[in-house]
């Protein structure tokens, strides 16, 4: 029965130009979106490769420099002596902490244009890693990218509404509804049959194009976690689409004419996709305002001034705590300098940590609130699911920040003792410098988070469909 209705709907609609226009629109936007995502991923990969090449080049130069200096061919000043742990740890030997794009990154640019994906790690205090973002025209950040996630979140609903705003009202206006309902077919099954065809059309087109585009743009489905992520992605998109179909059924069930339905549905689209997210954004910012970065800068500067003013005392205290690090000869100014700088860095980090923590706390609170009220709009749920699956959302970034912070500590712990003991680095010790290891987020975690969002979406969709079907029972077939 459903199949019959769907088949008839297809024969009926296929003669209409709208369908082909929509197919063309979907094809161009999806392919353009995937292409844009893929070229961004490509750019990130090349940049990361560039960082590794830069690192390799510098390390080769350091080794060469060590050999030259040891052989007496050169005598570099201390601040750029490749044998000095100080020079290597701060500048010459610094390594990059990088976050490679996740397997599905090409499908959603997400927040990855705004948040950095590589840091240069030095012995300097942790705060110096902050704010080193990728260059980008701010107008582009403001507009956001045209990626597949955008097509899905914004355009998919519109396409769905365009093909289903007159699902029942159109038949009623054409007069075929009465004839159809004089046969033993119920209105809900008629509506479902029509939805089935349209959903099959939109979703198949969307799924085939997305996967084809993704594969063409070089997504590797054999990468760990890629296949289940892609499956869940499809699930989220399907649930989101079904929500909009359900909404179309619900509005049609009210029994108004097609023009009113079109108005009502575009109004709902505006509410769910634009208004609720921006009002929620405002609400969250008002409830948990992030403290001013300007004030943070000043606080950090005051802390740094204070630390500088107290450097002698700090150094004395530091040496009391770490007598083993006391310079062998008190006349060794390099060692004195190194100990003082380590002591100051340590103290500075200790003092600004509360300021940074306050930011993290407020931002996490905002995030919590956003998570809590995400169900208000399926667009928000979908955004969260898609960004998570593509690994371009805030969760993977936080994961990266934690890894980078650990690596930074590891780097300090490795270099600082050498600095203070004024060890002369050998070529072998350059190879011993801690290496960055990117560890991918646990796939189960990602799937768990995105799965929750998808489940919530599916629940909302089911709810809307159920209400729609119930409302259809009271549909005025005549009058």
């Amino acid at each position, binding site marked *: 029965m459903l199949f019959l*209705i769907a088949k008839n709907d297809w*024969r009926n609609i296929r*003669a209409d130009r709208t369908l082909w226009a929509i197919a063309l629109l979907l094809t161009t936007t999806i392919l353009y979106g995937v292409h844009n995502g893929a070229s961004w991923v490509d750019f990130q990969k090349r940049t990361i490769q560039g960082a590794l090449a830069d690192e390799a080049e510098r390390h080769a130069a350091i080794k060469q420099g060590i050999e030259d200096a040891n052989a007496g061919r050169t005598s570099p000043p201390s601040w750029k002596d490749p044998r000095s742990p100080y020079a290597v740890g701060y500048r010459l030997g610094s390594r990059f902490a990088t976050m490679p794009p996740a397997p599905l990154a090409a499908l959603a640019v997400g927040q990855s244009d705004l948040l950095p994906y590589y840091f240069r790690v030095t012995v300097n205090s942790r705060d110096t890693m902050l704010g080193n973002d990728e260059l980008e025209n701010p107008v582009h950040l403001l507009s956001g990218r045209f990626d597949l996630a955008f097509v899905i979140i914004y355009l998919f609903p519109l396409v769905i509404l365009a093909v289903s705003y007159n699902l029942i009202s159109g038949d009623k206006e054409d007069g*075929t509804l*009465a004839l159809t*309902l004089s046969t033993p077919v119920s209105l809900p099954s008629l509506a479902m049959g029509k939805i089935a065809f349209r959903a099959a059309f939109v979703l198949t087109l969307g799924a085939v194009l997305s996967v084809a585009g993704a594969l063409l743009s070089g997504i590797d489905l054999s990468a760990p976690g890629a296949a289940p992520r892609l499956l869940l992605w499809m699930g989220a998109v399907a649930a989101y689409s079904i929500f909009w179909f359900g909404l179309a059924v619900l509005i049609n069930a009210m029994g108004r004419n097609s023009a009113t339905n079109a108005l009502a549905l575009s109004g709902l689209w505006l509410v769910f996709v634009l208004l609720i997210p921006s009002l929620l954004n405002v609400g969250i910012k008002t409830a948990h305002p992030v403290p001013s970065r300007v004030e943070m800068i000043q606080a950090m500067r005051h802390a740094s001034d204070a630390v500088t003013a107290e450097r002698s005392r700090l150094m004395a205290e530091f040496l009391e705590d770490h007598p083993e690090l006391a310079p062998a000869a008190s006349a060794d100014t390099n060692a004195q300098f190194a100990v003082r700088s380590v002591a100051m860095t340590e103290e500075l980090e200790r003092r600004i940590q509360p300021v940074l923590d306050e930011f993290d706390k407020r931002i996490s609170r905002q995030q919590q609130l956003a998570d809590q009220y995400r169900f208000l709009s399926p667009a928000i749920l979908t955004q969260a699911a898609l960004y998570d699956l593509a690994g371009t959302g805030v969760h993977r970034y936080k994961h990266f920040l934690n890894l980078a912070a650990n690596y930074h500590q590891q780097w300090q712990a490795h270099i600082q003792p050498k600095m203070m003991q004024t060890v002369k680095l050998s070529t072998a010790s350059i190879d011993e410098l801690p290496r960055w290891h990117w560890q991918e987020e646990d796939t189960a975690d990602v799937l768990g988070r995105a799965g929750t969002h998808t489940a919530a979406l599916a629940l909302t969709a089911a709810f809307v469909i159920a209400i729609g079907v119930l409302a259809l029972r009271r549909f005025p077939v*005549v009058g």
Partner: protein
Amino acid sequence: MLEALSLTKAYNGHTALNNLNLTVAAGEVFCLLGANGAGKTTTINLFLNFIPPTSGTAKVNGIDVASHPLESKRYLAYIPEQVMLYRNLTGIENLSYFTELAGCEKYSQAKLLDFLTAAGLQAEAADKRVGSYSKGMRQKVGIAIATARNAKALLLDEPTSGLDPKASNEFSELLKRLSGNGAAILMATHDLFRAKETGTRVGIMKHGNMVAHMKTEELGHADLERIYLEHMHD
């Protein structure tokens, strides 16, 4: 076959149909006459369960349409004033869709064409899109749907209004054939002449009440018109 028991429909205090009791047996053609708003279309809509009754029941083949809407429709066919079909489909495609939807056996193309030609549609029109059909042609497709479905009861809502006399005549002939095959037909119409010609019984409705009810074989043409006009006078 068609049975109305104390059937009543009120909208916000206005009674559109008041306590209608009516039985149309197989092979009968019952014509409902009356002015606009007398309750004819309401009666048909109630039999189709397009609107719920305020009280009373409408039965098709003994089945209450309000409690078993889908079963009751197995036996029903409906031809509205304007048979509206899917404009982008051909006559045959429309016929095939509606018969399959009704749960009939799947007819062959030749059989479908037979139904259409039997309903008076020219064979070459059957493969054209319905968008190009005249009203008469669409009514014929409506009849073809009813015959193909082998409906036991037909509900017709002013099916001949706006048809030219020849098309109207052909339509009457088709109806006679259907009732001859044992269908019960309930038809709302303004056309006294057609009612006398095709109907076996007529009922005159006014303000939701069935005010007169007679057999056509006992009437002359002039009698029917006179009785009708008498009732229309207040």
